[in-house]
């Protein structure tokens, strides 16, 4: 047994993920059974039984959603502390790229949280209506989520059992640094145009949300997440680290930077998720979701302000940019 698997945090993490999967498996079996026999118009005892069973699925999914969210934070934290055991790793960046599964796993986690949030929104709509209008839709969505989570579980074990504690990994400066002038940014952007896009798209997102241009707001938010990712890694991050060559999305999660990374990434992703999910709900179900839209606006604005503040404060303090 390798020492990674015996590390406390990894054990706790894997155990938690396995328990959640057990619960989801129960929910999956129930949902599948319900889908086969669901007939809302019927007065039969069986239909009422199915409606009651659907509540078990809801309970499990709500629990899973909350815990998955906490576990994502815990996962990042655990990976960060593993960087002591993996040679060459200075932060989570090195550990996550210790094998091919890491990045995919992290990406899947973000996708799963998005779909779980979408499911929550659909479910609350479905419960508020008087005839379960989208019961089948949300059930199929859950079945899709279940399959993604199954893959994720496999990846969890694959990832942690394939971290080699003897083979040195790259540290974040090699993974994200600009090597020999190669441009890591997409679409051939440079820092200036990247920043221009960053603020421009932010304004478009705000405008689209406020003027209720739902389709535009979904597309703009998606684009914003992508541009924001690169902006933070290649520009704003350097101001957090106060070092122009330090390009890393993970180091800012460490105590040296007051864990600000959790706030940066948290506001970005939660804001974007809420915005996209509520817009989708408004497009598909013609239902006003004012609260979520407002929260999304506020969170994304906090994100932009936070990033900008790091640059501004640095400039005010030192009189120059990096």
């Amino acid at each position, binding site marked *: 047994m390798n020492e990674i698997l015996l590390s406390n945090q990894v054990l706790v993490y894997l155990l938690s993920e396995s328990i959640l999967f057990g619960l989801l498996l129960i929910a999956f079996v129930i949902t599948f059974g319900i889908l086969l026999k669901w007939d*809302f118009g019927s*007065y039969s005892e069986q239909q009422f039984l199915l*409606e009651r069973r659907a509540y078990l699925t809801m309970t499990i999914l709500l629990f899973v959603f909350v815990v998955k969210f906490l576990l994502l934070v815990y996962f990042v934290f655990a990976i960060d502390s593993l960087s002591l055991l993996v040679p060459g790793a200075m932060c989570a960046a090195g550990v996550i790229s210790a094998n091919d599964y890491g990045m995919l796993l992290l990406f899947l986690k973000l996708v799963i949280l998005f779909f779980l949030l979408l499911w929550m929104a659909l479910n609350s709509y479905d*419960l508020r209506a*008087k005839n379960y209008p989208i019961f089948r839709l949300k059930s199929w969505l859950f079945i899709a989520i279940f399959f993604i989570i199954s893959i994720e579980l496999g990846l969890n074990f694959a990832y942690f059992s394939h971290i080699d504690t003897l083979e040195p990994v790259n540290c974040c400066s090699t993974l994200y640094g600009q090597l020999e002038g190669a441009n890591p940014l997409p679409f051939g952007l440079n820092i200036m145009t990247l920043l221009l896009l960053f603020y421009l798209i932010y304004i478009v997102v705000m405008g689209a949300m406020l003027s209720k241009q739902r389709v535009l707001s979904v597309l703009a938010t998606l684009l914003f997440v992508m541009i924001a990712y690169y902006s933070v890694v290649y520009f704003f991050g350097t101001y957090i680290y106060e070092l122009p060559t330090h390009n890393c999305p993970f180091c800012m999660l460490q105590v040296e930077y007051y864990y600000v990374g959790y706030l940066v990434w948290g506001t970005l992703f939660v804001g974007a998720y809420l915005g996209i999910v509520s817009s989708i709900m408004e497009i598909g179900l013609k239902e006003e979701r004012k609260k979520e839209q407002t929260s999304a606006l506020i969170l994304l604005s906090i994100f932009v302000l936070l990033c900008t503040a790091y640059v501004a404060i640095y400039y005010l303090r030192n009189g120059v940019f990096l």
Partner: protein
Amino acid sequence: MMKAMIVIDNLNKHFKSGDDIFKVLKGINLQINSGECIVLKGVSGSGKTTLLSIIGGLDRPSSGKVLVEGESISKLPDLHISHFRARKIGMIFQHFNLFDHLTAAENVMIPLIPTGLDMHEVNHKVEVSLKLANIFHKANSAAGRLSGGEKQRVAIARALASNPAIILCDEPTANLDRNNSLKFIDILSQLHEMGKTIVVATHDPLFDTLPFESKIIPMEDGSLVDTFSKDTLAES
């Protein structure tokens, strides 16, 4: 012109036990107008409690419809039927059904909790209904220590807490002595005056001669036998 509060349309209810199908309610048709008082009379097993449960949204019919204020309640999802119970129905049970370890006031609070009101409004409503049921002086006594009559009044206060339009009583006097039963009927007449729609399921002969206008509907073997109106006001 009286407005139809409850409309029951060809209502059937049967239970399955093994291979046998046991029919409890057979093709019930009934209209109850707003402000009416209906007394369902019948021996136990005649199906009156089941009918009451279905009207109150506590049980589901096997077929047929129950419309309350024009809306069918029989197929509402749980969230909505519960909402309906919380706001439209005041239920008085045969065994009082109080939480003995809670005080009278806390018992009355229970149906108000899922309505999402704040503490201040809830306390106000609890006070009003305890006073209405004439039991406010026992507000802070544990329900388990109250006498039968007092328990019944707490149960009434609880049924009134969310100011429902419909009051359903299941054998309300079965556990009361004659004196307390008469007091209960007094309160009932007050509720009648407030314009509540009242349905009582009972076999107590006291309800044959209510001091206010009421309609007695005998039930037998899952069907309504006959409907006739009886004005008892003149007699009293």
